[in-house]
């Protein structure tokens, strides 16, 4: 194809079928370069410097290639669609079987209508890449994020509010399990709709219970009972090395920063005060610190060193080295793939302060779909999100992910069809008044890291629960104050923008 033809197509703002598309700027730059190169070639021929000319050509070729490559960056993302369809780019963090399940949903959507084509792209570390893409003015139309990251995106004006679209589409809060709906809201607006949610619960190894003389069908119901079981399940080698433990707060340690929830604690007051240094959180950290005191720091470190990767047969739970762990509904899938065939397990609410009153504690989280600010086709993007939030589509996705639906009502047979025999435990936990979500705060990432480091310090006996939590309290209150100040600077403007949208 001739250069003029490419440029004509560029200025008519249409794509050239079967060609790599360059932006207008890049095309003009390329043309300018070609003209310059031609002029240069004449000069060099006249100077009869063959070697120099050869180098210049190689160099110019490389330069043109780089310019073309730069110009094409934004163009590789849209491809194979029919020319009259609106293409929306969808970034999702899932890979493996979860990614395949979502791709099926995307394919179903693409086949279900002829106006929109969803271009599905798996993206690792999506939270950071979306931030940079949005800052660069080239975000995808839809992105799959974690619910806990929404506040920081919202307060930085990086997302589009979905209230209007949701209203028009007849999406109602009553249809969703309350905690999942609430985690999609921040500062009075709706920013996301859930995809696959999860809650967590105690998973226990029945065989180890039996071997320790415990009733394999009866999990612990209080923290005190958990510790009594722990002592009973503990097994050491003749030289004193720990071989089996009942429970270890840091295995796998995914919610080590939120153990205070099971002691009745919270991490902030919902407004402007951090509550890390509360009696409940102190009790949780003292509980973590009790492990190295009872079992020995060196012994615990050596024991933990023997664990393999989570997604492997060397997982401490599958190996029968730790009898009780806190995990989510996805654990079923890992058990199927990595645990021995005769692995016997059960699931129950993790023992905690509200258990007797029927408000079993769980940490509920969800994957969510958002529309970044600057998305080229927000309306079409929402159509896709709406499609995913149809009950039957959602159930198909959640079944494939081995999770449960974020809807209050599920189709008859959903639970029966679900491969995880304990899925109802997770559903009930999510609906329980004791269900908690990570704090809806813009500083959650640093707060979480700080709590993880604090838990690590007490587990090494490098500090007491009081010391580490006082430090976290002080540091995180400062961080929250700083973010609140930042928010107050833009609050009016943002609220106005969002209300108008």
């Amino acid at each position, binding site marked *: 194809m001739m250069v003029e033809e490419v440029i004509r197509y560029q200025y008519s703002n249409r794509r050239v079928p079967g060609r790599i598309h360059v932006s207008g700027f890049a095309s003009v730059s390329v043309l300018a370069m070609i003209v310059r190169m031609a002029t240069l070639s004449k000069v060099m021929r006249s100077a009869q410097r063959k070697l120099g000319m050869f180098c210049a050509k190689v160099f110019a070729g490389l330069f043109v290639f780089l310019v073309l490559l730069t110009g094409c960056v934004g163009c590789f993302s849209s491809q194979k669609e029919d020319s009259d369809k609106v293409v929306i780019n969808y970034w999702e963090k899932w890979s493996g079987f979860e990614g395949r399940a979502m791709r099926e949903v995307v394919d179903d959507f693409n086949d279900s209508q002829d106006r929109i084509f969803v271009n599905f792209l798996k993206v690792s570390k999506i939270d950071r890449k979306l931030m*940079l893409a949005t800052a660069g003015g080239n975000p995808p139309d839809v992105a799959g994020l974690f619910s806990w990251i929404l506040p920081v995106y919202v307060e930085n004006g990086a997302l589009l509010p979905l209230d209007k679209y949701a209203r028009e589409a007849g999406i109602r809060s009553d249809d969703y399990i309350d905690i999942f709906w609430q985690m999609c809201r921040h500062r009075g607006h709706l920013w996301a709709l859930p995809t696959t949610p999860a809650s967590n619960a105690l998973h226990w190894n029945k065989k180890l219970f039996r071997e320790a003389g415990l009733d394999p069908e009866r999990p612990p119901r209080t923290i005190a009972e958990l510790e009594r079981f722990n002592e009973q399940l503990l097994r050491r080698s003749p030289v004193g090395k720990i071989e089996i433990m009942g429970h270890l707060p840091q295995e*796998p340690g995914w919610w080590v920063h939120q153990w205070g929830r099971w002691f009745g604690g919270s991490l902030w007051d919902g407004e402007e005060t951090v509550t890390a240094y509360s009696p409940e959180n102190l009790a949780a950290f003292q509980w973590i610190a009790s492990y190295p005191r009872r079992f020995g720091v060196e012994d615990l470190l*050596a024991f933990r060193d023997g664990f393999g990767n989570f997604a492997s047969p060397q997982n401490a739970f599958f190996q029968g080295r730790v009898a009780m762990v806190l995990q989510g509904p996805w654990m079923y899938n890992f058990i199927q793939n990595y645990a021995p065939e005769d692995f016997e397990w059960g699931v129950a609410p993790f023992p905690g302060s509200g258990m007797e009153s029927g408000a079993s504690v769980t940490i509920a989280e969800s994957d969510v779909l958002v529309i970044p600010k600057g998305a080229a086709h927000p309306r079409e993007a929402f159509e896709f999100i709406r499609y995913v939030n149809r009950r039957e589509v959602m159930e198909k996705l959640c079944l494939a992910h081995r999770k449960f639906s974020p809807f209050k009502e599920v189709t008859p047979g959903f639970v029966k069809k679900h491969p995880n025999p304990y899925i109802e435990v997770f559903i009930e936990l999510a609906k329980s008044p004791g269900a908690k979500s990570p704090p809806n705060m813009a500083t959650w990432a640093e707060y979480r890291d700080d709590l993880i*480091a604090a838990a690590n310090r007490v587990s090494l006996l490098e500090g007491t629960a009081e010391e580490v939590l006082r430090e976290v309290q002080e*540091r995180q209150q400062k961080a929250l104050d700083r973010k609140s100040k930042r928010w107050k600077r833009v609050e009016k403007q943002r609220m106005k923008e969002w209300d108008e949208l």
Partner: protein
Amino acid sequence: MTAMEGKRLRIGLLFIGPWIFGFLLLSVYPVVASLYFSLCDYSVLSRPVFIGWQNYGDLVFDELFWKSLYNTIVYASLLIPLGFLVSFALALMLNFDLRGKGVFRAVIFLPSLVPMVCLAVIWRWMLNGEFGLVNTLISPLATFLNAWIGTDFQPPSWLQEAVYAKLGLVLASLWCVGNAVVIYLAGLQDVPRHLYEAAEIDGANFWHKTRHITIPVVSPVIYFNSIMALIGAFQVFAVPYVMMRGGNGPDGIGGPDRSLLFISTYIYQNAFDYWNMGYACAIGLILFLVILGLTLLATKISANRVYYAGS
């Protein structure tokens, strides 16, 4: 300027143009921009708001910043001298006229070709307290010492104990001395043989020759490698980041008791995890000043100790 000179100038500029363009865009602009952003409250997605010296003021009272700076200095203080000793000793050995020295040189350089991420993953397992190769190797020594002097030393959980984590990282970093060895080797091969011959006539042994001939002659190479090692050590990021599983492990990104929280890691956390780009820029500039200061100090200290044959 003649027509030919003008033509040559244009051609010269054409050749150097892309470099100047890249330098301005990718080096000068980021430095100037980060200087400005360090004076702002900036989260990447929001408009930067000028707040004067507040970020720098906050840094003074930020104990994590001081902890990360301390960790970085300790790590550099361990790695730079150890790296020098190991790489220089290896270069001296490889400089002997041995059979198959080409193979030895290749073997020592080979680990430098391993990408940082692979290095970190491999060393995470090498340093595992239960099954790691390092502990397997030192276990007999520990047993022998315990029996001999009656101690109770056990091979440590390298990456889980604050005391040993940095040592483990230094050990892993020493694996990559190949680059420095090659540069030292090039320097050693440039030492005039007649100096050794003269020293031998005077009865000098290997140590005398090394101390009074080799080291002075290759001192510019030692100086260069030391500055490079200093910069590299202060910018350490990838290996500890991957060793700590990017913060996804139970010990967090900083490792046990934050002993692996380095200044580059803290910059990264603030910029991309916590959305405090302005603050991260301020830390970045402090890091720049620290490296600059230490480089100038090293230059000043070495001014009378580095021997340039041509000067």
